[in-house]
């Protein structure tokens, strides 16, 4: 039976590691989501958020080639869009204001990221 649990959802993927981004991309599409991006830099992330009126959720890598993803996260939070952080850093490195956002610590399998995303979207 085909899993289409994210059918029709528009999910932004911000991840600078190609292999991870690619796999996430493929898996999200497999379960019916439409992937916005993926993008690998903060500038691209901010640009694509501004240019995309409809975003249902986002998976954000914490560190993008040395830049922290938080400005982009702020914009998403402002719009009330659920986000999931995927981070190579400890919880300490995440500012207080993002405490509520679910977080997956690398290394993490794609399936777990998606499970976390589903919870953030209150689909489970």
């Amino acid at each position, binding site marked *: 039976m085909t899993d289409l649990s994210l059918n029709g959802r528009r999910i932004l993927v911000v991840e*600078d*590691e190609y292999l991870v981004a*690619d796999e996430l991309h493929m898996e999200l599409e497999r379960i019916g989501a439409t992937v916005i991006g993926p993008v690998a830099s903060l500038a691209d992330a901010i640009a694509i958020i501004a240019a995309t009126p409809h975003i249902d959720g986002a998976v954000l890598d914490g560190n993008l080639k040395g830049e922290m993803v938080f400005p982009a996260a702020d914009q998403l939070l402002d719009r009330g869009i659920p986000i999931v952080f995927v981070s190579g850093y*400890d919880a300490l490195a995440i500012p207080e204001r993002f405490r509520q956002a679910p977080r997956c610590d690398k290394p993490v399998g794609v399936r777990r990221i998606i499970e976390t995303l589903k919870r953030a979207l209150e689909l489970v």
Partner: protein
Amino acid sequence: MASLSESTKYQRVLSDFGDFVLDHEDLDEILNEACRLVALGLEVDFAKVIEIDRSDDTGLVRAGIGWHPGVVGHERVSLSGQSSEAFAIEKAEPVITRDIASEDRFDFPPFLRDHNVVALVNVPIFLPGRKPFGLLQVDSRRSRDFGEHEIEFLKTYAMILGPAIDRLRTVAALRIADDRLQLIDNARAYVMVVCDADDRITAWLGGSEEILGWSRSEAVGQPAEIFFTDEDRAQGVPAMELARARETGTAADVRWHQRRDGSRVFLDGQTIAIRHPDGDLRGYLKIGQDVTERIRTEAALRESEERLRQFGEASQDILWMRDAQSLQWQYLTPAFEAIYGMSRGDALDGDNFGNWLDLIVAEDRPRVLEAIERVRSGEHVTFDYRIRRPSDGSIRWLRNTDFPLAGCDGAVSLIGGVGHDLTELREAELRLQVLMEGIPQLVWRAMGDGQLTWSSPQWSEYTGLSEEASRADGWLKAFHPEDRAAVRSEWADAAETGIFEVEARICSSARRSYRWFQTRASPVRNQAGSIIEWLGTSTDIHQIRDLQSRQQVLVAELQHRTRNLMAVVLSTSEKTARASSDLADFRDRFGDRLEALARVQALLSRLGEQQRITFDELIDAELAALEGASDQVSVDGPKGVRLRSSTIQTLAMALHELATNAVKYGALSQAGATLAISWTVARATADGPHWLHIEWRESGVAMPTGHPTPGHGRELIERALPYQLDARTRFVLGPDGVVCSIAFPLPSD
């Protein structure tokens, strides 16, 4: 046989004399009357009484009748040799001389002849106990005989005379003694005791009762040694004293005595032997003054002086006294020798003030002289100075506390002083100062509320605030305005916690910037445990803080890389699994890719901070892993092209895929085929970033018809590198081999 009238006459003479004696007490009157009556009775011209004086063996004409003036009380007769008087005393019998002219037994004194005496009778007078007193003499101008009755009368008369004389002498002596005793008895400040020859108390006079405690009735009859101390009695002192008094007349009696109640009293007096005129011992007079108070005071004074002396001898400090006028030392304690390294004898010799000044270091001398001048004018002065010890030339620091000592007239007569050796303290202080000023920390002292009392030169040098300007609250200006509240609140808690520790920024006046300091202080407490002050240091921890924060970044970065790497490994395994025909195939491919990843990590981990991997290193590492076939490979490009670390992993994986494909299917799988790797660095625009252009060109490869698409490698080149490195890539399967070009921007440094 005497006639009745003669007998009656003699009886009458004796009876008249008896009456006279009863009515009179003056010996001279009685003796003169005796002479008058006897001359009358015997009808002679002269009569006299001669008293023996043993001191020169003469007899004094004590009384008489009929004699010219100048005889009675003056004339003396010899009692030695050929005198009739001496003969009569010796025989104890009357001696009669009928006619001096025909007498050949005796010599006669001239005054007898002057009075034309012709006949005389000497009758000895004896006092009770047959002690000779002298002679009764009757003298006649005519030659005559003296009958038996007349002689008997004279003998009887002399026998009555003896006791009468004795009684009168005793009465006279007693009267004198009585008068004297009365005087003596009024002298209550003196112990006066009269004892008999056996040293039994017969009179207890003056202040004896008050001073010694026994009443007169208790004392009289007791041996005098009752008021000697037990020790003196045990040693026979009383007897020795009496013996000395007997020998020399008096014996000093200056010693402690004992009162009736056993307490002690010091008597200063003497014991006098009292003798009868004839020299026989009659007894002793002991007389003494109670000087107990004086003796006790003197003893206390001596004790106090002795204590003061011992105190001075034992003192580690020098105690001295000098004359306020001459400034010469009069007293100097032994501590001087230890401190000055010279004997007191040498120090006190000659002009000792001048010699002392010479020992003082020249530049300190004016200060010392000024201080002494002030003491002379009545001040207490404490001053420090240095001396140079003559013995070894070493310098000693001394602190003198000098004070004036006023004489009876209130003027300063002496200067007293205490000299304390400060040398070790000074040296310790100096060492501490060197330490405090030498350590890199800023050192300071403060009161409990943070009021600064002292700061080290380092503090002033660093902050630009003078020590004075830093006092009290002044130091706070050096702290960063944002940190001042924290520093203040730490002071507020410090008294309670006993700890002051705060990290805050302090402004460097030289750099004109704030640096982080750890400021700590420890309380100095008194014996009761109360905090007297705080000793603090401020340590520059700016660099440590920088290093710490950088280390935090590095640790975070390392964590990030590792976790990313694992994510890549995870993804790679997924991709490899999807592309593998079976498990063996997966194992080969996946192992290969892990090795490539490992090589990149090895390169990265060797890097120091700020260092970068160069492109030639990356290529060399990859080619070295190919093992052999190096003759088919040519490499051409500038060395030292530095790559951004975040780009290396993906770039290395892409190159690895190219190399793997070349080994499996391409240039390195066929003899005669070649692989040329070349690169250049160029700018696209004049002010844009530098780009690295890489070309991978295989040639001479017989392309197999069934050449599989190099899926993973091609994906990395065509999609991953543009995605991650903003690279522009091209991958072409040419007629004789793969041609691939990769270009991406380099970091600006």
